[in-house]
């Protein structure tokens, strides 16, 4: 019950605004064992915008995304997607996980991995037809990986693997894209290419939410910022939210000051 009160006090976005948001999170608490990693978190993501989730390592960013997607069960809190409970809206969401934890020796070529993005269309037994193959190839072409369609997934560089996972998310034909550190381990050219794809999605009215670590590129890439460290620190347009004082609240410490003054 204490949680409920904290949530109500901490809330500054009206119910109305969150009603149609692609993703609205209210009073979300997630813990591993008895350690709350995300505590009483609120966030409302703006439709048709690109939002960066930023915060230090271990701030709970990945955990927040996983709980918002129903991969982890939260202790408390509510997640709505386009105004409805998440479980009925999953087909509107595409997800690019942080790349850890994949068995890279898995017997699947790139095209089979991207085909997994079509599971919602195919279902259990649906036959894979010419349209599906075309869809897979066009998604691969968008990330410049169509030449690698028959390469086994483990035999790619880290940046190439990341682009395959983005192609898989594109194949999901979603309205809301959640990406966990899409630029980790990716060179500058690939990063620019991925940003271009994300901006194209935005201009098609899609909503993009990405966990992002490189503070120096936040204002350039993103419209909005959600700063968090276990709980929400600041949320809003990048111009107003991405300030030195907010960053200090999130990161603290002298080391952060060096980074931040370079960034802002």
């Amino acid at each position, binding site marked *: 019950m204490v949680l409920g009160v904290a949530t109500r006090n901490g809330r500054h976005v009206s119910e109305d605004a969150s009603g149609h948001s692609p993703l609205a999170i209210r009073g979300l608490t997630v813990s591993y064992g008895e350690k709350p990693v995300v505590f009483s978190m609120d966030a409302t993501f703006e439709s048709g915008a690109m939002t960066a989730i930023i915060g230090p390592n271990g701030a709970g960013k990945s955990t927040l995304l996983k709980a918002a997607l129903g991969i982890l069960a939260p202790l408390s809190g509510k997640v709505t997607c386009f105004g409805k409970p998440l479980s009925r809206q999953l087909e509107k969401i595409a997800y690019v996980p942080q790349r850890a934890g994949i*068995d890279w020796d898995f017997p699947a070529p790139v095209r089979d991995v991207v085909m997994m993005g079509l*599971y919602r269309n195919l279902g259990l037994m649906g036959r894979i037809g010419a349209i599906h193959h075309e869809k897979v190839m066009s998604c691969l072409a968008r990330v410049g990986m169509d030449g690698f369609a028959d390469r086994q997934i483990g035999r790619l560089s880290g940046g190439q693997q990341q682009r395959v996972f983005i192609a898989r998310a594109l194949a999901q034909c979603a309205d809301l894209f959640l990406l966990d550190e899409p630029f980790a381990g990716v060179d500058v050219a690939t990063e620019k290419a991925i940003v271009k794809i994300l901006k194209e999605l935005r201009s098609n009215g899609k909503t993009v939410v990405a966990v992002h670590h490189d503070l120096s590129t936040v204002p350039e890439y993103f419209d909005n910022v959600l700063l968090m460290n276990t709980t929400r620190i600041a949320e809003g347009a990048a111009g107003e939210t991405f300030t030195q004082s907010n960053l200090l609240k999130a990161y603290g410490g002298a080391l952060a000051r060096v980074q931040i003054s370079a960034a802002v």
Partner: protein
Amino acid sequence: MLIEALTLQLGYNATLVAAGAALLGMACGATGTFLYLGNRALISDAISHSSLPGLALAFIAMAWLGMDGRSLPVLLVGSALSAFAGLHVINWLSAKTRLAEDAAIGAVLSVFFGLGIVLLTVIQSMEAGRQAGLEDFLLGSTAGMLWNDAITIAVGGALVLLFLTVFARPMAMVAFDPEFAAVSGIDTRQTVMITMGLALGVTVVGIKVAGLILIVALVTIPAVAARFWTSRVRYMVVVAGAIGAACGYLGAAISATVPDLPTGPIIVMVAFAAFLITMLVAPGRGVLAVILRHRRFQNRVHVRQGLLALAQGQPIYERLTIRLLRRRGLVRADGVATEKGRAKAAIALLDERRWQILRSDPAHEVAASSYNGLTPLESVLTLDQIAEIDKALRLEAVK
């Protein structure tokens, strides 16, 4: 005798048993593929060992009720129940305590098996127990199998195969990336349970033929062997199924020719032979193919490096390089390039410079990734593209 067995001339019963064992082997191999993909190959060992107490208790219960304790379907139900209990304990241990899954498997497997052996000893002392032949379940046997038994096993294998074809897609997705699978609307817990359920099904159905100590081989080895042949899940399932079927069939047929020879060890030997052959001769990942390819590649690299050294007037130190160049008539015995060698060296140098340019251009990423130090650029690019690169080369030379 052996030839007759292999060509199904041992009579109706043995033929039926061999066919049932083949179907069972196919189901084991195909199911094993998904266990292998989910890094859970050992689970079938746990299932089979923990089925023993249930098997024994089912026999005791039937004996008390005055029935013939050897009814295979009842024994299998008993085995399935206790294997299910074993799986449950493993899950509970690895979820609720700090025990890792492999340690939990080891603990449960040995405790259940020990209990089962104790119960078997009890049965031995019962009057009905002496001729029960329950020991046959340890190492597997096809001797004295009835028509009904063969049908039970065949139907079990066929059912598992049916379920596999229905659930193959979500099972593969959960094995590859469970979080993405969950977001795609797949119930991952349910999918894991189906995979486990199928493993339980094939294992329990198979213990009569393959024996509970060794059936893990029939589940694991075909999948491991199949991985050598292919890098796609769907083909892997088929290949593993085929290897499993061959193992089951040969195991049953061979043991039918030798009285008292248990089936399980023969199946393991056949599976091991299949694995050995595969490991040696499979194209792509097989040992011989890898060695051959490596040797050939190494030779080509040496020739290329030798040519580049010639073109730039550098000395060649490596014996192997000199030997390879000589064998191709590119250098003379004193290490000086022949006319043919000089021409080839010039070509190699130009090609190398072109590749250098190409690697730095992201537009040529696909081509660049096929670079192995040997492929002539003409084989990956069009003439126009090469002209572009030569322009860049000339610019660089001017600088």
